[in-house]
């Protein structure tokens, strides 16, 4: 390309922010972008790898179905929860999944409002990841109750009993927060997909797909009026979704900080949890991005810029989380409260101390390698760190929930916790569900936002101010 191309580093109009890698590789046009992305969905031959992957995750989902059936038939007792550890894998997994979802919303909504171009190629599947993560997360509070068929009592519907739910309970706030989150995310995602559904509808060869895509495209014609309304709706939803990034995990953190248990009752939890959520979420986005761009040849769209940016976000949030750990230890000691001091001491030297120290390594120590530019630019290294961070974030919830509960105020009631096979099968089952849904998503929906990618092409940047959001 000539040096006049907006993407060239020599071009004075180059709107980069001193990145070494471009947001999108040079040499693409509207047509190539659209073709590239939509052909993944529409081409006749699905790669054999997809079938294998889908089949494996489908089997795992069957394991999940069996587990859930057995759970509802027999009761929570098939897990390892006991008194005093009333919550264990069930809530750990719930918080882990919800946390993961936050990255998607941050990328979709916050980065949109902040006009960060680099969000464009990753926001679609990041938002899909959020939705699927929230679906997996939602299974846990629904099924961890002793009588899950009565969960609907947590919703404030007018009823013949004359009772409302108890609104002072953080679990009620969860109901509102998570359902709002799921609704808004779904709407946001769906709205954003409409122009792409239309693209697929127009390009699909087989009749059934034409009809299906046509239905969900909601009659999109691409007219100016449609685009105008679309932009407004999209911005509004982004505005609605933005505070959710902060509020949902804050409310999830209230499940703990409202309790009196030492190790739970801490005011640092809201920001600490939100940072942790973004941390875990970006780790998961990286975990998905890196293989996807390789297998589907999307390196042109998801460039090193994205990888390094996300690595930097991981590092930043990792530092906040590490600060949280240090603060917890500090105020456990500084408070002078015997129960708090004991809790910190037990965390570091007690029965579950090995988990705590692995956690410190995973979440605190390992991301420090991302300070180094060479590491940030090394795809295998970034992938490994993202896996370690995902594990670390799960361990963090284990430490917070199980370790705090197993030894609290009255020593006669102390009791360890050990998971059963069903705890693991439920957890891995939801992982399988998550990946199965992602496989379906990748096969049937455009995993990168086609129309938004078009807007960041040089062709689109004809006039200043005419750039779509």
């Amino acid at each position: 390309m000539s040096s006049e191309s907006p993407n060239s580093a020599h071009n004075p109009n180059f709107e980069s922010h001193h990145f070494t890698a471009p947001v999108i590789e040079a040499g693409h046009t509207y047509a190539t972008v659209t073709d590239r992305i939509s052909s993944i969905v529409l081409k006749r031959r699905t790669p054999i790898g997809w079938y294998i992957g889908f089949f494996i995750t489908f089997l795992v989902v069957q394991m999940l179905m069996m587990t859930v059936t057995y759970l509802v038939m027999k009761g929570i007792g098939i897990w390892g929860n006991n008194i005093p550890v009333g919550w264990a894998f069930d809530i750990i997994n719930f918080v882990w999944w919800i946390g993961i979802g936050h990255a998607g919303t941050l990328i979709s909504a916050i980065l949109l409002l902040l006009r960060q171009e680099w969000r464009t190629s990753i926001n679609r599947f990041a938002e899909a990841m959020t939705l699927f993560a929230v679906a997996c997360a939602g299974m846990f509070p629904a099924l961890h109750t002793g009588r899950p068929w009565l969960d609907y009592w947590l919703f404030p519907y007018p009823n013949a009993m004359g009772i409302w739910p108890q609104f002072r309970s953080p679990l009620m706030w969860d109901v509102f927060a998570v359902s709002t989150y799921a609704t808004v995310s779904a709407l946001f995602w769906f709205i954003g997909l409409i122009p792409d559904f239309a693209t697929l509808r127009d390009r699909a060869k087989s009749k059934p797909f034409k009809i299906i895509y046509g239905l969900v495209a909601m009659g999109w014609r691409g007219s100016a009026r449609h685009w105008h309304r679309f932009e407004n709706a999209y911005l509004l939803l982004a505005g609605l979704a933005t505070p959710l990034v902060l509020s949902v995990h804050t409310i999830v953190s209230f499940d703990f900080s409202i309790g009196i248990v030492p190790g739970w009752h801490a005011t640092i939890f809201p920001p600490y949890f939100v940072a942790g959520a973004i941390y875990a979420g970006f780790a998961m986005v990286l975990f998905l991005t890196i293989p996807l761009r390789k297998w589907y040849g999307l390196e042109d769209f998801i460039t090193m810029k994205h990888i390094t940016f996300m690595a930097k976000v991981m590092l930043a949030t990792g530092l906040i989380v590490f600060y949280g750990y240090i603060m917890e230890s500090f105020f456990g000691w500084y408070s002078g409260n015997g129960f708090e001091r004991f809790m910190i001491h037990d965390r570091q030297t007690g029965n579950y101390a090995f988990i705590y120290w692995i956690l410190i390594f995973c979440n605190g120590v390992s991301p420090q390698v991302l300070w180094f530019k060479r590491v940030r630019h090394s795809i295998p290294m970034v992938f490994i760190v993202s896996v370690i961070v995902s594990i670390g974030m799960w361990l963090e919830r284990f430490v917070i929930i199980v370790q705090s509960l197993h030894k609290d105020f009255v020593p006669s009631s102390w009791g360890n916790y050990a998971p059963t096979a069903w705890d693991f099968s439920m957890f891995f089952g939801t992982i399988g569900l998550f990946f199965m849904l992602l496989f379906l998503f990748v096969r049937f929906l455009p995993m990168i936002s086609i129309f938004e990618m078009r807007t960041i092409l040089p062709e689109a940047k004809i006039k200043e101010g005419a750039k779509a959001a």
Partner: protein
Amino acid sequence: MPSKDRHINFALMRDRILSKGGGKQFWRSLEELSDSPEFQEFVEREYPQHAEEWDSAVERRTFLKLMGASLALAGLSGCAYQPPEKIIPYVNNPEDAVPGKPLFYATAMPFGGIASGLLVRSSDGRPTKVEGNPDHPDSMGATDRFAQGSLLDLYDPDRLTTVTFAGQSRPWTSFLGDMATMLNTERQRKGAGLRFLTETITSPTLAAQMKGILTELPSAKWHQYEPASRNNAGVGSVFAFGQATNTTYDFEKADRIFSIGSDFLNCGPGSLRYTRGYARRRRTEGDDPNVNMNRLYLVEDTFSITGAKADHRLGLKPSEMEPFARAVAAAFGVKFGGAVGSAGAHGPWIAALVKDLQSARGKSIVIAGAEQPPAIHALAHSMNDALGNVGATVFHSGALEANPQDQIASIRDLVNDLNSGVVETLVIVSGNPVYNAPADLNFRDAMQKARTRVHLTSHDNETSELCHWLVPESHYLESWGDARAFDGTVTIIQPLIEPLYQSKSAYELMAAFSQQVDRKGYDVIRDYWGSQITSDFDATWNKAVHDGIVPNTVYQTSTAAVKTDWSNQQTAPPQNPPAGGIEINFRTDPSAYDGRFVNNGWLQENPKPITHITWDNVAYVSPRTARDLGLNQKEGWTGGNEKVDTINVSYQNRTVGNVPVWILPGQPDGVITLHLGYGRTRAGRVGNGIGYNAYAIRTSDSPWAIQGASVKATGEMHEIASTQLHFNMENRHLVRIQSVDEYRKKPNEAAELEPNPPRDESFYPQYDYKNQGLGYAWGMAIDTSSCVGCNACVVACTSENNIPVVGKEQVMRGREMHWLRVDAYYGGKDENKPEGPYFMPVPCMHCENAPCEPVCPVHATVHSAEGINDMVYNRCVGTRYCSNNCPYKVRRFNFLLYQDWDTPTYKLMRNPEVTVRSRGVMEKCTYCIQRIQNAKIESEREGRAVRDGEIVTACAAVCPAEAIVFGNINDPNSRVSKLKNQGRNYPLLADLNTRPRTTYLSVLRNPNPEITENA
């Protein structure tokens, strides 16, 4: 009107109009007005039954009347006529029986032959709860945990239901016929081939029956054997007094107590009364700092709860007990066949003890444990004599047993007869001698030499397996009988229900061997007492049965003095064993006792006092000895499990294998205590295959302690389920301990140890509990100084509130369902010489600022105006946040379906006033809300307020130490208010500002300042 057929005949209409006279005419349509034939046909078609009325131009009003009447009558015409069936209302119901309202009947539970008075609640004709009889001199309203558990035994689905012969069901008459044939033969040789083996019998009626049989058949013999009888006490009393003597004590009058291995606070005849007396001298009721507390010294060769409560305790080996006792006795001038005994290293301790006892002449008690050898009992009697206690705090009387025998000698005699082949017919009345007779006698083989074996038994057990005739035994709750209490008082045992199965009582069985076979128990008992009560029998009988006490049966106390020459009878004192050897002793298991309760789920799951072990028996080992033997244990991962090493114990070529050890701080060094009662093979679905059988090495020469056994670690570990695994208070002020001197100086010290936020230090307006509703505010005060840790309250709560049994695996997962638990915390710094443990019953605190309430998303746990934290089972969805947020961890969750919906007999047993909870709901102590409501309803009906002491929660009712007090804290004169006003009163975890309604009173210790190394 039909639109098609408009048959309007105008001509007809005109004629009609003109033909009518003046006055109004009403019509609704022209068709009607014209009244053409077509119209009439239409009306007939449409309204057949009213066609006539319509036709005759009936007026509207008449029409409506007809319509109305027919409507009213239509209902009746719809009914087919039924012939009348008269139902008869319950007009003449049985006396006092109001359906739904429970009645209470006095009875007694014979335990080791000895009765403790009970009041049993009957709900709609079946017993649902065992309480103590407040008028009975032993129980005075309390019960022990075995009496509580015995209710479940009545409804045990594993009970035998019919008489069987060689496994085939037979009618009772068939048995009677067989016995009649046998008796014919035996009568010719005066019963030489007939033997009876019973457990300890105090029943006057049964003794009379036996006497009758033995008078008729003088060569027949009556043997008694029970593995945990008070045989040594009996033999010891014969040494001391020349005849079998029963001794009772008045602990309430005792300033100083010296126990030589006696676990008088735990079990044994009179233990309920002794605990009550002891506890009354252990606490303050008013604010008087001049506490007249007793002081308890104790030496023992194991670790008992009486030992835990002792102010000064020494742990000794079994072989050291007698020399120690002799050394103490010598200080009172009691010589013992020349040898003085050795004080060992304990000289100063003994000196201080002796000085203290002598300062309490006539106000002290020396008591020896049932398991101690007879010589120690005799020594204790001598010491009481020397201290002038007899007649003041110690009382002697005739033996309680109707036929006092040395039971070891008795069973040996029987086995000899069996082995020599002279026994034709052996009748075993209750008991399980094949399982629990001394191992060296080999009762199993000996018994099979009898030609015919009859067993009266509740279950098909190890003994019944080898018997021909099995007669199911009636439970005491379903049969008539009588028995003596610790002081001789006789209680007539009356049944609360017809026998559930075709069972017989011991009296009915013995009748089969008398002249009048096939008598009912009622007749037998009544006839016997008819012969004893000479005047006004009916009135006396009715009152005795009603009160639960037969008057004038309490034993007169004698002024028997210890024979001065008794010590000359003694054989040489026992040799001191080689130092360093491990000695083994046996104790009954705190849950299974001698094995009879091993099929009882409530007692199996009831945590054993101190160790909190369930569903297993263990061998106690001290920490030092465990280290020496290389034995270890470590906490498991699932919340209630502990992995322990196991040992094999061998003695005289017999071995009991895979015995799980339990490292118990406080257990004397060099002693391993084995617990009897487990390892059964034919106990029932609950009890089979649990634990090890210590009877396998228990011999007749020394049934309670042996030396020279070998102990070897197996290298295998066993998993034990325990409900408490951490016994250290971890610097938290849970149980607060003061010495009496400290209390006198600073009466409020216990309360002030932790900052207790004042009530109004809050942003929020405080609820006014004083002026609302009926003005009650319920609260509870638990005195940890009185509590002896017997766990009767736990079983009582289980019984009252339909609490399910979850089984060993679930207890290992930390999911036991007991609403009330008794925590045990050690004090002190040295694990080889620990203080305590101190016992602390923990029910729901019913906090005014309950942390569980704001976190429940569905309002399943709410607060009543009277201060009760109400648990609404049917609203609970089971998120378990309330349990996580409860700092006292008193909430229990039904993780699985723990209730047994299927077994039919349990449906009879459950308390109908308490919801039976299903899977997925949280439950917890309710302060027995059902009893509170009953009392409020009664009081409202009678137009008065609830009286103090009218509401007794299940736990408070059975506590022999009166440690739990419940009442209205708005009433400043209630007992609970007065207790809460004491300086000893404090809330648990006060700093959290939960404002619990259940508060505790601190432990008061009374150490002797002259003994320094013990705290």
